[in-house]
């Protein structure tokens, strides 16, 4: 008996070692490419050409100067991305919450049909309507405007779906009725009483909506042709162009600059992000 127990304990020990080795290897695999990116952003092109190093060097300033001397304006890109992502996130979470509230709090004839419809259109790929969208915006003279990248966020079916699930479990109709008796208007009730209840769900969805918009390449790429309107992902594509052909240090510097804001956001909010991913999966 004693023998079996020590044996199984030994086996557990071996298993545990394997688990840690694999997990640490995978963690390194996640870190290493970005580590090399940040390190190479500080190395000169000659150093990068001579081999791999995991320690930073001293050419950060030179790389930055070369990068900025060739019509690469990360600050402009950063602000364009910030405006688009910021406003589209506000549109997405506010109007999705409002739509979800309409689905949960009111009993209207087409409610069930509308919800079914939202489920149906949840997965329409952007590419499926891209050509028509582009041509339509072209006719409106809205290419090179930020509006077509912001306003479509008002209709975000997946966020409505999530918000509806949240409201179903959190909203008490008594509270809404109490507000009515106090003479509050319906929109006022939504803004002042329902929205505060939804803050946790809004925060989660806002992070994901923001990151998705921030990382989006396809739509900005087809709509924006003026350099001063470029978003960060489009700027990244400039790094692959001919102008930086051999300036490896600057390419890495440009990449590092575009990724940096996301690293900051991620390490500040990682707990909520991981919790949000977990929540997204069990939303059946």
């Amino acid at each position: 008996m004693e023998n079996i127990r020590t044996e199984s304990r030994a086996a557990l020990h071996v298993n545990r070692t394997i688990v840690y080795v694999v997990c640490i290897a995978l963690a390194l695999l996640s870190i290493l490419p970005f580590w090399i990116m940040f390190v190479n952003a500080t190395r000169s092109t000659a150093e990068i050409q001579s081999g791999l190093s995991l320690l930073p060097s001293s050419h950060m300033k030179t790389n930055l100067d070369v990068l900025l001397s060739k019509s690469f304006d990360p600050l402009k890109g950063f602000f364009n991305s910030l405006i688009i992502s910021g406003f589209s996130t506000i549109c997405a979470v506010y109007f999705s919450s409002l739509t979800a509230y309409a689905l949960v709090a009111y009993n209207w004839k087409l409610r069930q049909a509308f919800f079914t419809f939202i489920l149906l259109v949840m997965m329409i790929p952007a590419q499926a309507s891209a050509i028509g969208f582009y041509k339509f915006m072209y006719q409106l003279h809205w290419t090179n405007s930020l509006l077509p990248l912001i306003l479509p966020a008002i209709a975000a079916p997946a966020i409505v779906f999530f918000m509806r699930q949240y409201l179903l479990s959190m909203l008490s109709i008594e509270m809404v009725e109490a507000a009515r008796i106090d003479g509050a208007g319906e929109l006022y009730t939504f803004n002042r009483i329902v929205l505060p209840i939804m803050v946790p769900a809004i925060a989660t969805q806002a992070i994901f909506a923001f990151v998705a918009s921030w990382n989006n390449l396809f739509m900005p790429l087809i709509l924006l042709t003026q350099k001063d309107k470029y978003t960060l992902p489009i700027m990244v594509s400039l790094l692959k162009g001919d102008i930086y052909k051999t300036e490896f240090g600057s390419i890495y510097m440009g990449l590092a600059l575009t990724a940096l804001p996301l690293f900051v956001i991620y390490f500040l909010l990682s707990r909520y992000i991981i919790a949000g991913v977990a929540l997204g999966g069990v939303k059946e």
Partner: protein
Amino acid sequence: MRRKSVSYSRFGYMFSLPFILAFLVFSFYPVLYTAVIGFTDMKGVIPKPVHILDNPFGNFTDLILHNTSFRISLTNTALIWILNFIPQVGLALLLTAWFTNQRLKVRGQGAFKVLLYMPNIITASTIAVLFNSLFSYPMGPVNSLFESLGWIDAPVNFLQDKTTARGIVAFIQFWMWYGNTMIILIAGVMGINPALFEAAAIDGANGWQTFMRITLPSLKTIMLYTLITSMIGGLQLFDIPQLFLFGGPDDATLTTSVFIYGQAFKGSYMFNKAAAASMIMFAIAAILSGLLFYLMRDRDASRLKKAQKRIKKAAQAAARGL
């Protein structure tokens, strides 16, 4: 006392209105417009009269029957998706089994989750260009690493070889998404009734048996959800192949989205061809969405409906009995 009853139902319509309007203008109309363009001869930058083709399905038949690039793009999309999805789910399942194993009690799970999920949050465009630089030839970080480890004797030109280029795109996709899948699966396991695991432990089931007989069957719905959302996402794969090698070398990483973009916006302005290809993609996504819809249809509502029916029947029966 008479109470005036107020109907609030109109607010349901009113509050849904912004969503409906934005959807009609920015999604529905563009989809219809794209579909129409697919039947026309619209091409070129300079606007000129557009006509419906004599053979309305000309663009579609052309693409499917005669356009090798398009067919290659469909095969590539499927191939890259399969190459990324199978290892992705395999690894995610393995990690899920480890992280949820009560006897192993893996420590630092929080930190591992944060690190393994990290690539998913970073801009795909940045990652694509980064990997292009990492795999550069003859002197790139990966080549130097592999050489110093003794895995290769001479630098490999990863980016010029069709197989490695495609493999790297699939790898990036795998690397960006397995953490996401893992977290979803772990959440799924957390949702399983603990009594099931206790019963298995009392019956003397080992870790493998518990995983195969309890964990895996309980994860069926979540796995299906992951499968279908991943397929729809894979269908749209654009950022990585576009910025990694612009669909090259020799169309090896040309996905359907890259093909559509190339047809419409990279000098040839074949809007009709691109629109037709979009519609084919839309059809595939619609079929997949239909599957997902059946999977996620509102169970609460259907249960409620059943309950109402039962009450009605009971009431009728009672009425008859009286």
